[in-house]
């Protein structure tokens, strides 16, 4: 039986997860430089040890209003395709080991922007975790309506 490790985090009370190997690191950061004229999903840029990282606002990607960038905000930094990209999230959860058995495709009732980002649902004890499609999640040119 195959099992996978997921790093979990919360956005607007919902638990999401990405596979651990796609994550470079997790950290909280204070100051973001806005990029005028960039797609709305771009929260800003920040300095990660001298590297300029773009932070993608997961709330916007999920069809919600922009996250207020006051005070420290948690970043899940994904390795990305050659250049790291960060996802702005509300809260970091645990790393969980999940059997494929616990996996189900997204429910048919799930629609809207969230549906496009989610590849499946994992049944955890007492709550559900939505597994994100990493590439879709950081694609800021995706039509977010």
């Amino acid at each position, binding site marked *: 039986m195959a099992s996978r490790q997921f790093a979990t985090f919360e956005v607007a009370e919902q638990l999401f997860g990405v596979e651990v190997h796609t994550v470079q690191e997790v950290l909280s950061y204070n*100051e973001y*430089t*806005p*990029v*005028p*004229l*960039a*797609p709305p999903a*771009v929260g*800003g*840029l*920040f*300095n990660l*040890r*001298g*590297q*300029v*990282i*773009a932070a993608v606002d997961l709330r916007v990607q999920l069809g919600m209003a922009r996250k207020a960038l006051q005070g420290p905000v948690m970043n899940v930094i994904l390795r990305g395709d050659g*250049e790291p*990209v960060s996802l702005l999230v509300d809260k970091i959860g645990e790393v969980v080991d999940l059997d494929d058995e616990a996996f189900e495709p997204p429910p048919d009732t799930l629609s809207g922007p969230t549906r496009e980002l989610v590849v499946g649902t994992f049944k955890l004890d007492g709550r559900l975790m939505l597994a994100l499609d990493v590439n879709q999640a950081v694609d*800021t*040119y995706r039509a977010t309506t």
Partner: protein
Amino acid sequence: MEDLGEIVGEFLLESHENLDQIDRDLVSLEQEPDSRDLISRIFRAIHTIKGTSGFLAFSRLEKLAHGGESLLSKLRDGVQPVTPATITVLLAMIDGVRSILSSIEENGSENDVDIDSILAQVHAQMNVGEAAAEAAAPAAPAAPAPAAETPEPLDETPAAVRPAPEPVEEQRKPIGELLVESGGAQPQDVGSALAQQLDGDERKLGTILLEEGKAKPAAVNEALSQQAPKRSIADSAIRVDVDLLDTLLNMVGELVLARNQLVRGVMETGDATLVRSAQRLGMITSELQEGIMKTRMQPIEHIWSKLPRVIRDLSNSLGKKVELVMQGKETELDRSLLEAVKDPLTHLVRNAVDHGIEDPDKRVAAGKDPEGILTLRAYHEGGHVAVEVADDGAGLDVDRIAQKAVEKGLLRPEQVPNMDKREIMAMVFQPGFSTAAKVTNVSGRGVGMDVVKTNIENIGGAVSVDSTPGQGTVWRLTIPLTLAIIQALTVDCGEQRYVVPQVAVLELVFIDGTSTKIEYASGAPVYRLRGKLLPLVRLDKSLGLEPSGDQGVYIMVLQADGRRFGLVVDRVLNTEEVVVKALNSRFKDIGLYAGATILGDGKVGLILDVSSLARRSHLAADSDRKNLEGSSRANAGAGSGERLLVTAVGERRVAIPLDTVTRLEEFPRARIEHAGSREVVQYRGQILPLVRLSHLLGAYGEEPEGDTVSVVVYSEGERSVALVVDRIVDIAENSTTARRDAEEDGLVGTAVIQQRVTELLDVRRAILAADPNFYTDLESDEMLVEA
């Protein structure tokens, strides 16, 4: 191809270097056909290639090199004279070698390259020579067999008997031996000098001989110079992977940023010991950065060296005579930049030979030397390197360019009278522009000046052209020293800080809303810059932010795409060196940003793409120009163009209007005396009060060491005062308007001069600081003594 093997790789690398040298030598040989040195050098280089290719079993290459060597040996032995035809054949042979080498590099084999036709040419040349030699002197001794690999006779040192025919591998000869061989010293003198050294005399052998009068300085120098080139370059240099250097450079960039943050933090604590350590760290970091940058630097000669050949071939085919002058070939540039500059520079040179320099008969008719002069000039200028390609040809025809630009639809006829000469000349950089009356195979192929401009702007540089009818044209490339670190101005717009590459900034204007103000032409903002209308781009609007007011803002006068425009920002902060970071690819489509950088406070700052801002502004500017021509002309005033003396005070540049300067003097420090709290010197029978600009302006930094101080003397009537500066930098033309700066006492403003921010001294205030009664008691001489 994938595994050429290290030896072949080394061979290719080395041969390419050798071939470039041979090219240069051949072109010089054509100028001085009697130079045995040159022939020998070319011979040796070809011989090395031949030897190695034989060893590596590249038989075609060996055959070709052998052919060339045979012809060269005839030239060397004087059997055959050096003629332009021989040079052409030899150059063709070198090209053949080159194409074999690149074929080896690409597919590991040399079989596709045709060498027979080149060899036929080479043999034809040799036969010409033989026939001529036999006809002229039938009794002359037979030429050595073409294949002979005799070492070249060393006529300068006939006594030398060389054991090995390969001078390259020869060990360094002791200087004594060289001196004896050349007759510069007697064997017994050298012997006794050596004995002295054995007895503990630590002087060098040459020094001993010189000091005892046993050898002439010239002889020793010659022996030393003979010794020097024999030290193989391998002893003093190593090859380093460029990627490694890039990584090091990036890390040093980070170090610089960390240093900046640390220094800022430490300054706030005010702990003197920590501050000193931080300053020391700062210095070391700067030196480290400089050192790493230097490893990537190469003299511009590296790319210039190919140009003599280009010019020779081109001028021959066009029937023109061109002399090439190179100035500043030791000027160094970052390696990656050199690569990027190579093609644009070659294009400019070809263009200058093709279109700039006239045919010999036309030149004679114009009263010029039939031989045109093409000057390549490279020099440092305020954090940039300027590279100029100057010809003494007919110059650009401004009217013709204007006409052509109108024909091509690049300009509207009514725009032309409103443009100055330089603006019109800059039209040649527009895509699809070519004034060449006839299209030659050299230029006018559509890849022209616009490509030059794009390439140079891509590396953060700028292109300009200036021309005087009948006297020639100067094309000028301004190139940053390195790609990774640029001089930039930080500006505020809204709540964010942005970075503007300084190379694009011409000047800064402060808009106070009364004496300087933004005007609107049916909604489009403009500013009257010395009587001309400058289209304005509001940065906040361009970025989709809330627009701020029109008062208390700054206009940065920028140049890009050959046009000027003003960028309105809220505040201009300072200039600093920033490390350019590539911006995440997702932002490339926006087009407004050229990159990002980490600012001193650790935040990310966006670097603005000036060209793209310019393109945005011109859409609007073109439609507004027309309406405004009338008012612009009515208000046209004379440009200031005053000349300024630029001085260094601490780390600042301070400019003083030249017409207020009477003399520049150097006074010995010891001559400075004290009168009350003031410093004075005796000068031409007067007591001259001194004021140190560093004190007046509150400039920090240590006083320069040295026994003298530099002063600027200002006199009016009988009275004089002296302003002490650290250093006189330059005299510059001020084409800029000062921006008011109320924060600083003692200054009338700040301007960008020679691409550096320079403060303009309030001369009157400085004089009053030295002598409070200077203006009130001009008649009274006694007062001066008391002052």
